[in-house]
Structure formats: structure tokens, C-alpha cells
């Protein structure tokens, strides 16, 4: 049985439906990331789990107990807020101990617990300071300490890294991951950053306009996106979407008969001739010939004009253009390529997925 279950959860604000029947399950020790563009309802969902925002209908079950109508403090959860929400009038020590104090834990016991958590997070030297005397990263750590000290059943994180600068964000992200691996805590984490979602999650839920678009492991979401929205939202640079038409058991790309590829192995049904489809490929599935996967069964080499070259150091992103359609390829950084040149791109069709442009769903 799942540890955290969300059943048919709806939230209406006047006539505006923010959550439209959300169903999610999470096993104990799982790391669930809710990801989606702003306004998709992910923060509303997290607040509903926390008990800060009552849902209009539906149930929330933690460890077999229905908590939908319980007060936030009775749900045995802890939340880390985007703004950290540290009590400005208390020292770090008092901040961390506050929840224990509210539960009536003895002072001596509180001190022991706070010391233990401070040691895990390496903030022992900050205990006597006030939040205003801390840097962003330190505040973030104190906020985590405040959650950790309670040893709750579920941790909730509301975009905890979005107030940090880029370098610190990567560091703290790694710390959260390590924390999860060491404590086996059950975590629900909200973010709009798809890289955070990919790196942290054991399970990702992609939300859009209050509806679940896809639930899956990071690999499933990345390699087998359920629809065009998920394909476009996850991954940077974005997935290449190439318009094509089914013809004689293959797919003609770039609006003509000239370039034709086999139907990728991800499609198991047979497609009728003349059907419009969208062939989607990650940038890393389009490479220079030297980087092409030798294990791949279906590789198509297509020559296209180079319109942009973006070196990132580790690889170079090359934009190719053919008959008005552009795509981004990820090539080796030392590949010889120049603007305007005709360059042979290797399309790894093993990795390709096909979408129906009418329904926007993936064709399997």
C-alpha cells in the first residue's frame, strides 16, 4: 500500500478550477517532485497536503490515515517554504526548537535534538544567531533543520531553491539529495525547474492547468513523455519536434518525400499511410556521426544547413535547418563545423517518439 495517497483532489476558487481531480500515490521513502509551469496548481496541491488550504473535494491519506480534515499540526508533516519563513525574533536554535516546544518536549531533550540536527546540517556555529545575520544558503539550511528536527512522516518542500544563486542552488540541491538518501524520508517537492525535478525525484508528476499530465520516474518522463506538453516542458534544450507524414511504412520528414526515416521502435501499432505525425527527438539523439550510438539499430543520416553553433564547453549544440524546419543537435565539442555548411547529422531513431498532432498524445 502507498504511504501517501491523493485521491480525486479538487480545488475550486469561485468558478476557477485550480485542481481538477488529482490522483497521486507515493511509496514510503519516495521523493515525489511536482513540476509544471507557474499557475499549474502545484503549490496549491502542496498547501492542500500541508493542510493550509482545504480542498473542495477528494481525500489525502498518509500512512493509511485520512488527514483531509486534520489541522496542519496534527498531520505529522514538516514544510520548508520558498522564503524559508524563519521566525525573525528567535535565534536559529529557538527556530529549530519551536516545533518541539509546541509539542511540550522537555528543554533538555530539545537541546539534544537541536544539537543533533545542527550537526547533520553543519550549522552548529550558527545556533546563537538570528535569521537576519545569516546568508541565503545558511537560512535554507536552518529551514531544513526546522523540518528535520520533528522527524515527520512527510517532508514538504515549496520551491526551496528558487531564492538562491545558481552555484548555491546546485550545492543545496546535492545536499537535499544526500539528505534523502541518508534519512530515507518521504518527500514531496514542488519546483518549476525541470532539472531539479530530474536530479532529485524518484517519481515526477508533471502538472498543467490543474491536471496531471504524466506520472513516472525521471527516465520515463524524459524518454517516453506522454504528450507534447511534457515533451516540450522537460529537458533543456527542448525536445526537437519534427512534422512528418506516414508513407509506405516509414515517416517522411521536412514536408517532402526526399527525407524519409523508418518508424521508430517506440511505436508498436501500425500507422495508416498519409497520417500526420510529429517525430520527437532529444537533442542528444541527433549528433555528429562520430558520437552516434554504435548500439543503435536505426540511425538515419540527414544533411542539413547549420544555422547556429552554441558551444557549452562539454558539448556543442548545433542548430540545423532543412526546408524551413529547425532542430537542435548535441555534438562533440571538438567537432569541425561552421555556419552555413551542409553537415551530416545522425538521427538515432531508437530514441525517437511519435506524437499525434491532433490529440497531442504519444502514439505507442
Amino acid at each position: 500500500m502507498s504511504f501517501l495517497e491523493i485521491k480525486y483532489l479538487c480545488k475550486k476558487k469561485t468558478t476557477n478550477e485550480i485542481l481538477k481531480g488529482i490522483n497521486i500515490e507515493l511509496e514510503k521513502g519516495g521523493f515525489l517532485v511536482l513540476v509544471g509551469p507557474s499557475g499549474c496548481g502545484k503549490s496549491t496541491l502542496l498547501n492542500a497536503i500541508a493542510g493550509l488550504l482545504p480542498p473542495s473535494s477528494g481525500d489525502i491519506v498518509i500512512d493509511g490515515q485520512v488527514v483531509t480534515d486534520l489541522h496542519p499540526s496534527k498531520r505529522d508533516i514538516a514544510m520548508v517554504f520558498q522564503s524559508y519563513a524563519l521566525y525573525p525574533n528567535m535565534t536559529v536554535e529557538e527556530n529549530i526548537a519551536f516545533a518541539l516546544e509546541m509539542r511540550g518536549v522537555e528543554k533538555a531533550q530539545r537541546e539534544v535534538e537541536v544539537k543533533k540536527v545542527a550537526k547533520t546540517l553543519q550549522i552548529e556555529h550558527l545556533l546563537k544567531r538570528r535569521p537576519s545575520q545569516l546568508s541565503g544558503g545558511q537560512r535554507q539550511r536552518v529551514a531544513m533543520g526546522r523540518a528535520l528536527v520533528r522527524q515527520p512522516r512527510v517532508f514538504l518542500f515549496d520551491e526551496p531553491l528558487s531564492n538562491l544563486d545558481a552555484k548555491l542552488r546546485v550545492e543545496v540541491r546535492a545536499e537535499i539529495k544526500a539528505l534523502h538518501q541518508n534519512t530515507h524520508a518521504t518527500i514531496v517537492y514542488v519546483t518549476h525547474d525541470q532539472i531539479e525535478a530530474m536530479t532529485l525525484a524518484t517519481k515526477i508528476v508533471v502538472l498543467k492547468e490543474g491536471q496531471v499530465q504524466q506520472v513516472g520516474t525521471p527516465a520515463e518522463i524524459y524518454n517516453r513523455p506522454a504528450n507534447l506538453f511534457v515533451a516540450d516542458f522537460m529537458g533543456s534544450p527542448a525536445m526537437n519536434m519534427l512534422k512528418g507524414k506516414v508513407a509506405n511504412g516509414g515517416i517522411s520528414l521536412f514536408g517532402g518525400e526526399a527525407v524519409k526515416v523508418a518508424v521508430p521502435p517506440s511505436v508498436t501499432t501500425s500507422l495508416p499511410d498519409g497520417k500526420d505525425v510529429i517525430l520527437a527527438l532529444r537533442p542528444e539523439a541527433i549528433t555528429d556521426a562520430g558520437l552516434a550510438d554504435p548500439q543503435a539499430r536505426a540511425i538515419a543520416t540527414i544533411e542539413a544547413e547549420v544555422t547556429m553553433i552554441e558551444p557549452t564547453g562539454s558539448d556543442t549544440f548545433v542548430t540545423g535547418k532543412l526546408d524551413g524546419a529547425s532542430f537542435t543537435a548535441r555534438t562533440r565539442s571538438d567537432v569541425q563545423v561552421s555556419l552555413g555548411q551542409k553537415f551530416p547529422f545522425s538521427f538515432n531513431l531508437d530514441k525517437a517518439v511519435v506524437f499525434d498532432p491532433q490529440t497531442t498524445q504519444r502514439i505507442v
Partner: protein
Amino acid sequence: MSAANETVSAGSARTARYFIYAALIVLAVVYLLPLYVMLTTSLKSLDEIRGGDMLALPKDPSIAAWVKAWGEACIGVSCVGIKGYFWNSLKMVIPAVLISTLLGALNGYVLTKWRFPGHKIVFGMMLFACFIPFQAVLIPMARLLGLMGLSNSTAGLVMVHVIYGLGFTTLFFRNYYEAFPDELVKAAMIDGAGFFRIFWRILLPTSGPIIVVTIIYQFTNIWNDFLFGVSFAGGEASPMTVALNNLVSSSTGVKEYNVDMAAAIFAALPTLFVYVVAGRYFVRGLMAGAVKG
């Protein structure tokens, strides 16, 4: 902007500055003159006052008038000075200020962090209370105090001032708490703190500046109030302002200007004291939130 600056030379900027300071000094002297006259007059003897020069320094300063004003001056028929009324005023102002400030803080907390349907209307109506003229409520209030058995008592005055002050104190605290992050309240809720615990432990300790503003504002208003005092508390229960009026307007015997002045200074001392002690917080509190610090 920069073009305008270039047309102002350093010399003319300095001249303008001298002019501004000169004007400020003149205005300050004008404002301080009454205080100077009060102080010097209170230290003079009656003969010297009758001698004429109001602005002259006292030739032979004496605090006799102060002693008399405090303990011997006749107010109405009893000649025991103003000290009893001074205490009356303190007994009125301290509870009234504390209760109205506390209730205002509580109102502000509820109106911003525990919003209920119609909270805007409730706040609007409380604001409306700020604009009701004192005279309009005198008779209904007198009737109410009579029904409650509080007429002619300090407790009644405390109640009147608390009710009248609530509009202002609520306004101050609501606007201050409006800027207070909701996430802190949510975090405290998850941590297990209840309604009052969040108020006492999280909000009140961070409300220093606005508490000072409210206390100064309420203290000054309530201490200086005359109309409610004279309407609802006569005789022995009169506050300082009413007693001062009775002292000055007593028409028996000679007019003792030095005693009047000393009594007036006694009446002004507590508000002066509050401003001197907490004045810098007052300005800071008024500015809080205006500029992100």
C-alpha cells in the same frame, strides 16, 4: 535632471542652504517661545510678573509656584493642588493605552492573517470610527456609562478611550501586519502553534516599531483629551486637563499666573517624557515599510 543640476552653482546652493537654516531657526524659536514663557513665568514671583516684561529671565528663580501647584492650589473648593488629578490621569491613560494597543494589535492580526468573509467591511467600519466627531457620541455614551454604572469614574473614561482609540490602533496594526509574511504564520501553524501562541510568540515580538507609534499616539491623545474628561468624569475623578482648566478659570482671589504655568507644565510633562524617550522610534515606526530596509 542633470541639466537642471548644472544650472545651480555651488555658491547659490550654499546661499539657499543658509536661507533654509535661518528659516528653520526662526520657526523653531517661534514654536519654543510659549514654552519659554511658561517656564520663566512659573519660576517668577507674582510681583515680578506684574512688573511686566514677559520675556525677561526671572531675577530670583523659585520653585514655590511648582510646590503650590502640585500640593496646595485650590481647584474648585478643595485646596490640595493638582496631584490627585495627575494620578487620575495616569490611572486613566495607562490602562486605556495598553488595552487599546493590545486590542488593536489583535484586530490587525485577525484582519490580515485570519481573514474571514467580509473582513474588508469590518475594517472599513472600524476606520469609520476614526471619523466620528467626539461631540456626536457624547449623549449616547453618557447614557451607556450610566446604564453600566460607570459614570463619573476613571474606569468609565478608560472604556470610552479604549473604544474611541480602537479605530486608530486597528488601522496602525493592520497596515503593519499586512506586510508581515503569511508564510511565517503558516510555518507556525505546521509547527503546532495555535491562534494566540502565534500572536504572542511570532507577531508581537516583531511589532516593536508599530507598538511605539501606537503608544505615543494614544498616550498623547488620551492624556490631552478634555471633552470626554469634562463630560464623563467631574469633581474628584476629573483628569488633569479638566483640573487645569478649573484651576486657571477659578475666579477667587488674585490670579496666580506662576502657579497656573507650573500646573500647565505638570500637565505637559508626561507627553514630553514619552516623546523624548520613544520619539526616535516614532519616526522610525512611521517610516517602517515605506522603504525596504
